């Protein structure tokens, strides 16, 4: 029973990545795309943690952590680039 609910949650997260991806394609400005990318990465972090528990490899949690770190730095770099160039 619990497994079915966990899998449903993962599928809903996957669907929300898809919706954010549509916004990333049609988004009229760069900032829209960056926001959509931010949301996609955070959903992906949740999915990575889900996969870590699902396949019983706890080492994947470290990957989720590094991915969170890189996405934060990436979004801040995009913001800084928009503000005054590289």
């Amino acid at each position, binding site marked *: *029973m*619990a*497994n079915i*609910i*966990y899998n*449903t*949650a*993962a599928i*809903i*997260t996957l*669907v*929300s*990545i898809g*919706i*954010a991806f*549509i*916004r990333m394609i049609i988004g009229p*400005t*760069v*900032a*829209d795309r*960056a*926001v*959509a990318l*931010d*949301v996609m990465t*955070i*959903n992906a*972090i*949740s999915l990575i*943690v*889900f996969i870590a*528990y699902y396949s019983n490899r*706890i080492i994947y*949690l*470290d990957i*989720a*952590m590094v991915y*969170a*770190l890189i996405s*934060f730095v990436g*979004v*801040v770099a*995009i*913001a*800084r680039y*928009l*503000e005054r160039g590289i």
Partner: protein
Amino acid sequence: MELFGAIITLIGSLFLLLGALGIFRMPDVYNRMQAGTKATTLGTIFFLFGISIGHLECGCFGKIVVLILFVMFTNPVSSNALARAAHFTGIKLTDRTKKDDLEKDNIKNKGEEK
């Protein structure tokens, strides 16, 4: 206990879906950020917490706590930086906007410099 964790995870994933829907439906970039930041932060907290209390036997609760703290601190910072950059590059607010104090103050500062 596992069922309880599963239900919390489901609630978290629903919040994540709401965040993505908000990104899709809102009219301008600032409103999108509002939905994107808040809903995804709470959604991630619920999702990770639910998964970890459903699998307490592996003893990696600490890593999940670090991950939750990290998301909670960096998510507002990155959206703040993006909002600031978006306003700086002159992305227009939607037509339904009531007022814009920042724009007014920018114009005032330029007038004083001249």
